[in-house]
Protein backbone atom coordinates (compact mmCIF):
# COMPACT_ATOMS: atom_id res chain seq x y z
CA UNK A 1 0.00 0.00 0.00
CA UNK A 2 2.77 2.38 0.96
CA UNK A 3 4.60 1.90 -2.32
CA UNK A 4 1.42 2.50 -4.26
CA UNK A 5 0.72 5.73 -2.37
CA UNK A 6 4.26 6.95 -2.97
CA UNK A 7 3.65 7.12 -6.73
CA UNK A 8 2.16 10.48 -7.81
CA UNK A 9 0.15 8.92 -10.63
CA UNK A 10 -1.42 6.41 -8.27
CA UNK A 11 -2.24 9.12 -5.73
CA UNK A 12 -3.85 11.17 -8.47
CA UNK A 13 -5.95 8.21 -9.57
CA UNK A 14 -7.04 7.48 -6.01
CA UNK A 15 -7.94 11.14 -5.54
CA UNK A 16 -10.20 10.91 -8.58
CA UNK A 17 -12.22 7.98 -7.24
CA UNK A 18 -14.37 9.93 -4.78
CA UNK A 19 -15.30 12.76 -7.20
CA UNK A 20 -16.09 10.23 -9.94
CA UNK A 21 -18.27 8.19 -7.60
CA UNK A 22 -20.03 11.37 -6.59
CA UNK A 23 -20.61 12.35 -10.23
CA UNK A 24 -21.92 8.87 -11.03
CA UNK A 25 -24.32 9.05 -8.07
CA UNK A 26 -25.36 12.52 -9.19
CA UNK A 27 -26.01 11.38 -12.74
CA UNK A 28 -27.97 8.40 -11.47
CA UNK A 29 -30.14 10.68 -9.32
CA UNK A 30 -30.71 13.01 -12.24
CA UNK A 31 -31.67 10.32 -14.72
CA UNK A 32 -33.65 8.03 -12.40
CA UNK A 33 -36.78 10.07 -12.97
CA UNK A 34 -39.18 11.02 -10.23
CA UNK A 35 -39.43 14.21 -8.23
CA UNK A 36 -35.75 14.42 -7.30
CA UNK A 37 -34.60 14.30 -10.91
CA UNK A 38 -35.92 17.83 -11.36
CA UNK A 39 -33.50 19.24 -8.80
CA UNK A 40 -30.47 17.23 -9.88
CA UNK A 41 -29.24 18.66 -13.16
CA UNK A 42 -27.81 15.89 -15.35
CA UNK A 43 -24.13 16.24 -16.19
CA UNK A 44 -24.78 16.87 -19.88
CA UNK A 45 -26.96 19.86 -19.03
CA UNK A 46 -24.21 21.23 -16.77
CA UNK A 47 -21.84 20.82 -19.70
CA UNK A 48 -24.36 22.49 -22.00
CA UNK A 49 -24.75 25.36 -19.54
CA UNK A 50 -20.99 25.77 -19.44
CA UNK A 51 -20.77 25.88 -23.23
CA UNK A 52 -23.70 28.30 -23.40
CA UNK A 53 -22.29 30.67 -20.75
CA UNK A 54 -18.85 30.61 -22.32
CA UNK A 55 -20.16 31.07 -25.86
CA UNK A 56 -22.32 34.12 -25.19
CA UNK A 57 -19.61 35.68 -23.03
CA UNK A 58 -21.79 35.77 -19.92
CA UNK A 59 -19.32 33.78 -17.86
CA UNK A 60 -16.38 35.95 -18.87
CA UNK A 61 -18.41 39.09 -18.10
CA UNK A 62 -19.42 37.76 -14.68
CA UNK A 63 -15.89 36.70 -13.82
CA UNK A 64 -14.57 40.08 -14.86
CA UNK A 65 -17.23 41.91 -12.83
CA UNK A 66 -16.61 39.91 -9.65
CA UNK A 67 -12.83 40.10 -9.94
CA UNK A 68 -12.85 43.82 -10.61
CA UNK A 69 -15.26 44.41 -7.72
CA UNK A 70 -12.94 42.48 -5.40
CA UNK A 71 -9.85 44.27 -6.64
CA UNK A 72 -11.49 47.69 -6.42
CA UNK A 73 -12.58 46.87 -2.87
CA UNK A 74 -9.08 45.67 -2.07
CA UNK A 75 -7.51 48.81 -3.50
CA UNK A 76 -9.84 51.23 -1.72
CA UNK A 77 -10.52 49.38 1.52
CA UNK A 78 -7.01 47.93 1.76
CA UNK A 79 -5.21 51.23 1.28
CA UNK A 80 -7.51 53.02 3.72
CA UNK A 81 -6.95 50.16 6.15
CA UNK A 82 -3.17 50.37 5.84
CA UNK A 83 -3.25 54.14 6.24
CA UNK A 84 -5.47 53.86 9.30
CA UNK A 85 -3.49 51.03 10.89
CA UNK A 86 -0.15 52.74 10.33
CA UNK A 87 -1.39 56.11 11.61
CA UNK A 88 -2.94 54.52 14.68
CA UNK A 89 0.32 52.74 15.46
CA UNK A 90 2.45 55.86 15.00
CA UNK A 91 0.16 58.36 16.65
CA UNK A 92 -1.28 56.86 19.82
CA UNK A 93 -3.99 59.49 20.48
CA UNK A 94 -5.68 58.44 17.24
CA UNK A 95 -5.58 54.84 18.42
CA UNK A 96 -7.14 55.81 21.72
CA UNK A 97 -9.91 57.82 20.07
CA UNK A 98 -10.79 55.64 17.10
CA UNK A 99 -9.55 52.22 18.24
CA UNK A 100 -12.50 51.26 20.47
CA UNK A 101 -15.00 52.47 17.88
CA UNK A 102 -13.38 50.54 15.03
CA UNK A 103 -13.14 47.40 17.14
CA UNK A 104 -16.81 47.72 18.04
CA UNK A 105 -17.73 48.07 14.36
CA UNK A 106 -15.60 45.03 13.60
CA UNK A 107 -17.74 42.83 15.85
CA UNK A 108 -20.79 43.11 13.61
CA UNK A 109 -20.90 40.35 11.00
CA UNK A 110 -20.02 42.13 7.79
CA UNK A 111 -23.18 41.02 6.06
CA UNK A 112 -25.12 42.48 8.97
CA UNK A 113 -24.40 45.94 7.58
CA UNK A 114 -26.21 45.16 4.33
CA UNK A 115 -29.74 46.12 5.46
CA UNK A 116 -28.47 49.40 6.92
CA UNK A 117 -26.40 50.27 3.87
CA UNK A 118 -29.35 49.20 1.76
CA UNK A 119 -31.43 51.90 3.43
CA UNK A 120 -28.73 54.53 3.25
CA UNK A 121 -27.25 53.94 -0.18
CA UNK A 122 -29.85 51.81 -1.96
CA UNK A 123 -29.52 48.17 -2.95
CA UNK A 124 -27.31 48.78 -5.97
CA UNK A 125 -23.72 48.23 -6.95
CA UNK A 126 -22.57 51.12 -4.76
CA UNK A 127 -23.63 49.27 -1.62
CA UNK A 128 -21.96 46.11 -2.88
CA UNK A 129 -18.69 47.96 -3.32
CA UNK A 130 -18.94 49.63 0.09
CA UNK A 131 -19.34 46.29 1.85
CA UNK A 132 -16.43 44.83 -0.14
CA UNK A 133 -14.26 47.83 0.80
CA UNK A 134 -15.24 47.44 4.45
CA UNK A 135 -14.36 43.75 4.38
CA UNK A 136 -10.90 44.56 3.02
CA UNK A 137 -10.40 47.45 5.43
CA UNK A 138 -10.22 45.57 8.74
CA UNK A 139 -7.63 42.86 8.00
CA UNK A 140 -5.41 45.51 6.37
CA UNK A 141 -5.83 47.83 9.34
CA UNK A 142 -5.24 45.23 12.05
CA UNK A 143 -2.13 43.75 10.46
CA UNK A 144 -0.53 47.10 9.55
CA UNK A 145 -1.14 48.25 13.10
CA UNK A 146 0.50 45.14 14.52
CA UNK A 147 3.39 45.43 12.10
CA UNK A 148 4.23 49.04 12.88
CA UNK A 149 3.43 48.89 16.61
CA UNK A 150 5.69 45.90 17.22
CA UNK A 151 8.83 46.86 15.37
CA UNK A 152 11.82 45.50 17.26
CA UNK A 153 13.23 47.96 19.74
CA UNK A 154 16.83 47.44 18.58
CA UNK A 155 15.95 48.77 15.11
CA UNK A 156 14.49 51.88 16.71
CA UNK A 157 17.60 52.23 18.89
CA UNK A 158 19.82 52.15 15.81
CA UNK A 159 17.61 54.80 14.25
CA UNK A 160 18.01 56.99 17.28
CA UNK A 161 21.79 56.56 17.20
CA UNK A 162 21.87 57.69 13.60
CA UNK A 163 19.67 60.67 14.49
CA UNK A 164 16.90 59.79 12.02
CA UNK A 165 14.23 62.38 11.42
CA UNK A 166 10.68 61.06 12.03
CA UNK A 167 10.20 60.72 8.29
CA UNK A 168 13.45 58.76 7.87
CA UNK A 169 12.47 56.60 10.80
CA UNK A 170 9.16 55.82 9.13
CA UNK A 171 10.54 55.32 5.65
CA UNK A 172 13.69 53.38 6.54
CA UNK A 173 12.72 51.48 9.69
CA UNK A 174 9.02 51.18 10.39
CA UNK A 175 7.74 50.57 6.89
CA UNK A 176 10.22 47.86 5.84
CA UNK A 177 9.92 46.14 9.22
CA UNK A 178 6.13 46.17 9.02
CA UNK A 179 6.01 45.14 5.36
CA UNK A 180 5.61 41.37 5.90
CA UNK A 181 2.61 41.90 8.17
CA UNK A 182 1.14 44.57 5.91
CA UNK A 183 1.29 42.12 3.03
CA UNK A 184 -0.22 39.40 5.21
CA UNK A 185 -3.01 41.85 5.93
CA UNK A 186 -3.50 42.51 2.24
CA UNK A 187 -3.59 38.78 1.51
CA UNK A 188 -6.32 38.34 4.11
CA UNK A 189 -8.05 41.44 2.80
CA UNK A 190 -8.09 39.95 -0.68
CA UNK A 191 -9.67 36.74 0.58
CA UNK A 192 -12.26 38.72 2.54
CA UNK A 193 -13.00 41.02 -0.40
CA UNK A 194 -13.46 38.02 -2.68
CA UNK A 195 -15.94 36.37 -0.31
CA UNK A 196 -17.72 39.67 0.33
CA UNK A 197 -18.09 40.24 -3.42
CA UNK A 198 -19.76 36.88 -3.93
CA UNK A 199 -21.90 37.32 -0.80
CA UNK A 200 -23.14 40.82 -1.63
CA UNK A 201 -23.80 39.78 -5.20
CA UNK A 202 -25.93 36.88 -3.99
CA UNK A 203 -27.78 39.00 -1.44
CA UNK A 204 -28.32 42.17 -3.49
CA UNK A 205 -28.15 40.82 -7.01
CA UNK A 206 -27.17 44.19 -8.49
CA UNK A 207 -25.03 44.61 -11.58
CA UNK A 208 -23.33 41.52 -12.95
CA UNK A 209 -21.07 38.99 -11.34
CA UNK A 210 -20.82 35.32 -10.46
CA UNK A 211 -22.98 35.79 -7.36
CA UNK A 212 -25.64 37.67 -9.31
CA UNK A 213 -25.80 34.84 -11.82
CA UNK A 214 -26.07 32.25 -9.05
CA UNK A 215 -28.87 34.17 -7.38
CA UNK A 216 -30.77 34.59 -10.64
CA UNK A 217 -30.27 30.94 -11.54
CA UNK A 218 -31.58 29.92 -8.13
CA UNK A 219 -34.87 31.72 -8.69
CA UNK A 220 -35.10 30.01 -12.10
CA UNK A 221 -34.22 26.59 -10.60
CA UNK A 222 -31.22 26.34 -12.95
CA UNK A 223 -28.88 24.21 -10.86
CA UNK A 224 -26.63 23.66 -13.88
CA UNK A 225 -25.92 27.39 -14.16
CA UNK A 226 -25.28 27.67 -10.41
CA UNK A 227 -22.77 24.82 -10.53
CA UNK A 228 -20.92 26.36 -13.47
CA UNK A 229 -20.71 29.63 -11.53
CA UNK A 230 -19.48 27.80 -8.42
CA UNK A 231 -16.76 26.01 -10.38
CA UNK A 232 -15.71 29.32 -11.91
CA UNK A 233 -15.64 30.84 -8.41
CA UNK A 234 -13.43 28.07 -7.08
CA UNK A 235 -10.99 28.27 -10.00
CA UNK A 236 -10.79 32.07 -9.93
CA UNK A 237 -10.32 32.14 -6.17
CA UNK A 238 -7.50 29.65 -6.47
CA UNK A 239 -5.79 31.53 -9.32
CA UNK A 240 -6.05 34.93 -7.62
CA UNK A 241 -4.73 33.52 -4.38
CA UNK A 242 -1.78 31.83 -6.08
CA UNK A 243 -0.88 34.97 -8.03
CA UNK A 244 -1.05 37.05 -4.88
CA UNK A 245 1.21 34.64 -2.99
CA UNK A 246 3.74 34.90 -5.84
CA UNK A 247 3.57 38.69 -5.69
CA UNK A 248 4.05 38.61 -1.95
CA UNK A 249 7.12 36.39 -2.24
CA UNK A 250 8.50 38.69 -4.94
CA UNK A 251 7.99 41.78 -2.78
CA UNK A 252 9.57 40.13 0.22
CA UNK A 253 12.48 38.55 -1.66
CA UNK A 254 14.93 40.76 0.27
CA UNK A 255 13.91 39.03 3.46
CA UNK A 256 15.93 36.18 4.90
CA UNK A 257 14.36 32.79 4.30
CA UNK A 258 11.18 32.49 6.36
CA UNK A 259 11.71 30.83 9.71
Amino acid sequence: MKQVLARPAARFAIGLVAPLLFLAWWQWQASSGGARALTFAPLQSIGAALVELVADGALARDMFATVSRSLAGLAIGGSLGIAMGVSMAIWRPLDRVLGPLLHAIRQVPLIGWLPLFGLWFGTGQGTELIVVCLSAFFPAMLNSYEGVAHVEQRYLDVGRLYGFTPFQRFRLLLLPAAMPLILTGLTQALAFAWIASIATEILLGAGSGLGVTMQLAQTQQRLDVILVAIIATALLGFVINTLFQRLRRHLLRWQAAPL
Partner: protein
Amino acid sequence: MTARAPLAALTAPLALLALWQLAALSGVFPTQVLVPPADVAETLWSLARSGELERHIGESLFRLGLGYLIGAVAGLAFGACIALSRLAEAALAPAFLAVWQVPVIAFVPVLVIFLGIDEPFKIAIVALATFFPVALATFDGIRGVPKAWFDVARVYRTRIPDLILRILVPATVPAVLTGMRVALTRSWVVLVAAELLAADSGIGQMMEMGRQMFRIDVVLAGVVVSGVIGFALDRGAKAIEHRATRWKYA
Protein backbone atom coordinates in the same frame (compact mmCIF):
# COMPACT_ATOMS: atom_id res chain seq x y z
CA MET B 1 -3.29 49.25 33.02
CA THR B 2 -4.35 52.32 34.95
CA ALA B 3 -7.93 53.08 35.88
CA ARG B 4 -7.87 55.98 33.44
CA ALA B 5 -7.50 53.78 30.36
CA PRO B 6 -11.07 52.40 30.21
CA LEU B 7 -12.42 55.91 30.68
CA ALA B 8 -10.30 57.18 27.82
CA ALA B 9 -11.51 54.29 25.70
CA LEU B 10 -15.09 55.24 26.41
CA THR B 11 -14.64 58.94 25.64
CA ALA B 12 -14.57 58.57 21.88
CA PRO B 13 -17.61 56.32 21.47
CA LEU B 14 -19.58 58.47 23.92
CA ALA B 15 -18.58 61.64 22.10
CA LEU B 16 -19.58 60.02 18.84
CA LEU B 17 -22.93 58.99 20.29
CA ALA B 18 -23.51 62.55 21.49
CA LEU B 19 -22.51 63.92 18.09
CA TRP B 20 -24.80 61.44 16.38
CA GLN B 21 -27.69 62.39 18.67
CA LEU B 22 -27.10 66.09 17.96
CA ALA B 23 -26.82 65.55 14.20
CA ALA B 24 -30.01 63.51 14.19
CA LEU B 25 -31.86 66.14 16.22
CA SER B 26 -30.54 69.04 14.15
CA GLY B 27 -32.90 68.06 11.36
CA VAL B 28 -30.26 68.19 8.62
CA PHE B 29 -30.97 64.55 7.81
CA PRO B 30 -34.48 63.11 7.74
CA THR B 31 -35.11 60.74 10.67
CA GLN B 32 -35.64 57.84 8.27
CA VAL B 33 -31.99 58.18 7.30
CA LEU B 34 -30.33 59.13 10.56
CA VAL B 35 -32.12 57.86 13.63
CA PRO B 36 -31.01 59.31 16.97
CA PRO B 37 -29.25 56.71 19.13
CA ALA B 38 -31.80 57.29 21.87
CA ASP B 39 -34.51 56.02 19.49
CA VAL B 40 -32.43 52.95 18.69
CA ALA B 41 -32.07 52.23 22.38
CA GLU B 42 -35.79 52.73 22.85
CA THR B 43 -36.58 50.36 19.96
CA LEU B 44 -34.17 47.82 21.39
CA TRP B 45 -35.86 48.14 24.76
CA SER B 46 -39.38 47.75 23.40
CA LEU B 47 -38.31 44.79 21.24
CA ALA B 48 -36.81 43.21 24.33
CA ARG B 49 -39.86 43.88 26.47
CA SER B 50 -42.34 42.52 23.96
CA GLY B 51 -40.37 39.27 23.82
CA GLU B 52 -39.81 39.71 20.10
CA LEU B 53 -36.08 40.14 20.45
CA GLU B 54 -35.86 37.09 22.64
CA ARG B 55 -37.68 35.02 20.04
CA HIS B 56 -35.38 36.19 17.22
CA ILE B 57 -32.23 35.60 19.25
CA GLY B 58 -33.52 32.23 20.41
CA GLU B 59 -34.28 31.10 16.86
CA SER B 60 -30.89 32.27 15.59
CA LEU B 61 -28.96 30.66 18.41
CA PHE B 62 -30.88 27.41 18.04
CA ARG B 63 -29.95 27.22 14.35
CA LEU B 64 -26.39 28.14 15.17
CA GLY B 65 -26.15 25.53 17.92
CA LEU B 66 -27.63 22.64 15.98
CA GLY B 67 -25.79 23.40 12.74
CA TYR B 68 -22.56 23.94 14.62
CA LEU B 69 -22.88 20.66 16.46
CA ILE B 70 -23.47 18.72 13.23
CA GLY B 71 -20.67 20.52 11.38
CA ALA B 72 -18.17 20.19 14.22
CA VAL B 73 -18.77 16.46 14.75
CA ALA B 74 -18.56 15.79 11.01
CA GLY B 75 -15.46 17.98 10.72
CA LEU B 76 -13.73 16.23 13.61
CA ALA B 77 -14.51 12.80 12.19
CA PHE B 78 -13.47 13.72 8.66
CA GLY B 79 -10.30 15.53 9.76
CA ALA B 80 -9.25 12.62 11.97
CA CYS B 81 -10.02 10.15 9.19
CA ILE B 82 -7.85 11.83 6.54
CA ALA B 83 -5.10 12.55 9.07
CA LEU B 84 -4.81 8.99 10.38
CA SER B 85 -5.13 7.04 7.14
CA ARG B 86 -2.86 7.78 4.23
CA LEU B 87 -5.29 6.02 1.94
CA ALA B 88 -8.21 8.14 3.11
CA GLU B 89 -6.05 11.22 2.64
CA ALA B 90 -5.16 10.26 -0.93
CA ALA B 91 -8.79 9.44 -1.68
CA LEU B 92 -10.58 12.37 -0.06
CA ALA B 93 -8.17 15.26 0.48
CA PRO B 94 -8.05 16.47 -3.17
CA ALA B 95 -11.84 16.71 -3.40
CA PHE B 96 -11.97 18.36 0.03
CA LEU B 97 -9.38 20.97 -0.95
CA ALA B 98 -11.18 21.69 -4.21
CA VAL B 99 -14.49 22.35 -2.45
CA TRP B 100 -12.60 24.39 0.18
CA GLN B 101 -11.79 26.92 -2.59
CA VAL B 102 -15.45 27.92 -2.79
CA PRO B 103 -16.68 30.52 -0.30
CA VAL B 104 -19.35 28.86 1.85
CA ILE B 105 -21.80 31.59 0.98
CA ALA B 106 -21.69 30.49 -2.67
CA PHE B 107 -23.38 27.25 -1.62
CA VAL B 108 -26.45 29.21 -0.53
CA PRO B 109 -28.18 29.02 -3.94
CA VAL B 110 -27.48 25.27 -4.24
CA LEU B 111 -28.76 24.53 -0.76
CA VAL B 112 -31.87 26.62 -1.38
CA ILE B 113 -32.64 24.54 -4.47
CA PHE B 114 -32.20 21.26 -2.61
CA LEU B 115 -33.57 22.14 0.81
CA GLY B 116 -35.86 25.09 0.23
CA ILE B 117 -35.60 28.17 2.39
CA ASP B 118 -36.80 26.68 5.65
CA GLU B 119 -35.02 25.47 8.73
CA PRO B 120 -32.99 22.62 7.14
CA PHE B 121 -31.32 25.10 4.77
CA LYS B 122 -30.13 27.36 7.56
CA ILE B 123 -28.88 24.49 9.70
CA ALA B 124 -27.12 23.00 6.69
CA ILE B 125 -25.33 26.23 5.79
CA VAL B 126 -24.14 26.64 9.39
CA ALA B 127 -22.97 23.03 9.44
CA LEU B 128 -21.09 23.56 6.18
CA ALA B 129 -19.45 26.75 7.45
CA THR B 130 -18.38 24.86 10.58
CA PHE B 131 -17.24 21.68 8.86
CA PHE B 132 -14.34 23.07 6.82
CA PRO B 133 -12.36 24.97 9.47
CA VAL B 134 -12.86 22.17 12.02
CA ALA B 135 -11.82 19.43 9.58
CA LEU B 136 -8.74 21.36 8.51
CA ALA B 137 -7.72 22.18 12.09
CA THR B 138 -8.20 18.55 13.16
CA PHE B 139 -6.10 17.36 10.25
CA ASP B 140 -3.32 19.85 11.03
CA GLY B 141 -3.54 19.09 14.73
CA ILE B 142 -3.18 15.33 14.32
CA ARG B 143 -0.46 15.63 11.68
CA GLY B 144 1.39 17.96 14.03
CA VAL B 145 1.73 15.24 16.68
CA PRO B 146 5.42 14.21 16.71
CA LYS B 147 5.95 10.82 15.13
CA ALA B 148 8.13 9.81 18.07
CA TRP B 149 5.06 9.75 20.31
CA PHE B 150 3.46 7.13 18.11
CA ASP B 151 6.70 5.15 18.20
CA VAL B 152 6.72 5.27 22.00
CA ALA B 153 3.10 4.16 22.01
CA ARG B 154 4.01 1.24 19.76
CA VAL B 155 6.89 0.23 22.01
CA TYR B 156 4.52 0.22 24.97
CA ARG B 157 1.95 -1.66 22.88
CA THR B 158 -0.63 1.01 23.68
CA ARG B 159 -4.09 -0.13 22.63
CA ILE B 160 -5.94 1.97 20.06
CA PRO B 161 -8.51 3.47 22.50
CA ASP B 162 -5.70 4.48 24.85
CA LEU B 163 -3.73 5.87 21.95
CA ILE B 164 -6.66 8.07 21.01
CA LEU B 165 -7.65 9.13 24.52
CA ARG B 166 -4.25 9.63 26.08
CA ILE B 167 -2.07 10.79 23.21
CA LEU B 168 -4.09 12.04 20.25
CA VAL B 169 -6.78 13.98 22.08
CA PRO B 170 -4.55 15.92 24.49
CA ALA B 171 -2.00 16.65 21.78
CA THR B 172 -4.52 17.94 19.29
CA VAL B 173 -6.89 19.84 21.57
CA PRO B 174 -5.23 23.27 21.15
CA ALA B 175 -5.31 23.23 17.34
CA VAL B 176 -8.80 21.78 17.21
CA LEU B 177 -10.17 24.35 19.65
CA THR B 178 -8.70 27.19 17.61
CA GLY B 179 -10.37 25.75 14.52
CA MET B 180 -13.65 25.41 16.37
CA ARG B 181 -13.50 29.02 17.53
CA VAL B 182 -12.84 30.27 13.99
CA ALA B 183 -15.69 28.08 12.81
CA LEU B 184 -18.05 29.54 15.39
CA THR B 185 -17.49 33.16 14.36
CA ARG B 186 -17.67 32.26 10.67
CA SER B 187 -20.86 30.28 11.02
CA TRP B 188 -22.47 33.20 12.84
CA VAL B 189 -21.71 35.49 9.89
CA VAL B 190 -23.02 32.93 7.43
CA LEU B 191 -26.18 32.39 9.47
CA VAL B 192 -26.96 36.12 9.59
CA ALA B 193 -26.46 36.24 5.81
CA ALA B 194 -28.76 33.24 5.30
CA GLU B 195 -31.41 34.81 7.53
CA LEU B 196 -31.22 38.05 5.56
CA LEU B 197 -31.94 36.06 2.45
CA ALA B 198 -34.75 33.87 3.64
CA ALA B 199 -36.28 33.39 7.05
CA ASP B 200 -39.39 34.11 9.05
CA SER B 201 -37.50 34.72 12.26
CA GLY B 202 -34.00 35.37 13.52
CA ILE B 203 -31.77 38.40 13.89
CA GLY B 204 -31.02 38.57 10.16
CA GLN B 205 -34.70 38.45 9.30
CA MET B 206 -35.44 41.16 11.87
CA MET B 207 -32.96 43.44 10.11
CA GLU B 208 -34.23 42.57 6.65
CA MET B 209 -37.84 43.29 7.68
CA GLY B 210 -36.68 46.56 9.22
CA ARG B 211 -35.06 47.48 5.94
CA GLN B 212 -38.14 46.67 3.91
CA MET B 213 -40.31 48.73 6.24
CA PHE B 214 -37.82 51.62 6.35
CA ARG B 215 -37.44 51.15 10.10
CA ILE B 216 -33.80 52.14 10.39
CA ASP B 217 -34.05 51.96 14.19
CA VAL B 218 -34.92 48.26 13.97
CA VAL B 219 -32.07 47.69 11.52
CA LEU B 220 -29.60 49.42 13.81
CA ALA B 221 -30.91 47.49 16.81
CA GLY B 222 -30.22 44.32 14.81
CA VAL B 223 -26.72 45.53 13.97
CA VAL B 224 -26.02 46.10 17.65
CA VAL B 225 -27.46 42.75 18.72
CA SER B 226 -25.63 40.77 16.05
CA GLY B 227 -22.40 42.53 16.97
CA VAL B 228 -22.82 41.79 20.66
CA ILE B 229 -23.65 38.15 19.98
CA GLY B 230 -20.68 37.76 17.64
CA PHE B 231 -18.42 39.34 20.22
CA ALA B 232 -19.79 37.19 23.04
CA LEU B 233 -19.39 33.98 20.99
CA ASP B 234 -15.78 34.83 20.18
CA ARG B 235 -14.97 35.78 23.77
CA GLY B 236 -16.67 32.69 25.17
CA ALA B 237 -14.82 30.43 22.75
CA LYS B 238 -11.53 32.14 23.59
CA ALA B 239 -12.17 31.62 27.31
CA ILE B 240 -12.83 27.91 26.77
CA GLU B 241 -9.76 27.64 24.57
CA HIS B 242 -7.64 29.31 27.22
CA ARG B 243 -8.98 27.10 29.98
CA ALA B 244 -8.51 23.89 28.01
CA THR B 245 -4.95 24.67 27.02
CA ARG B 246 -3.88 26.00 30.41
CA TRP B 247 -1.80 22.90 31.14
CA LYS B 248 0.51 23.95 28.32
CA TYR B 249 1.69 27.01 30.18
CA ALA B 250 1.62 25.57 33.68
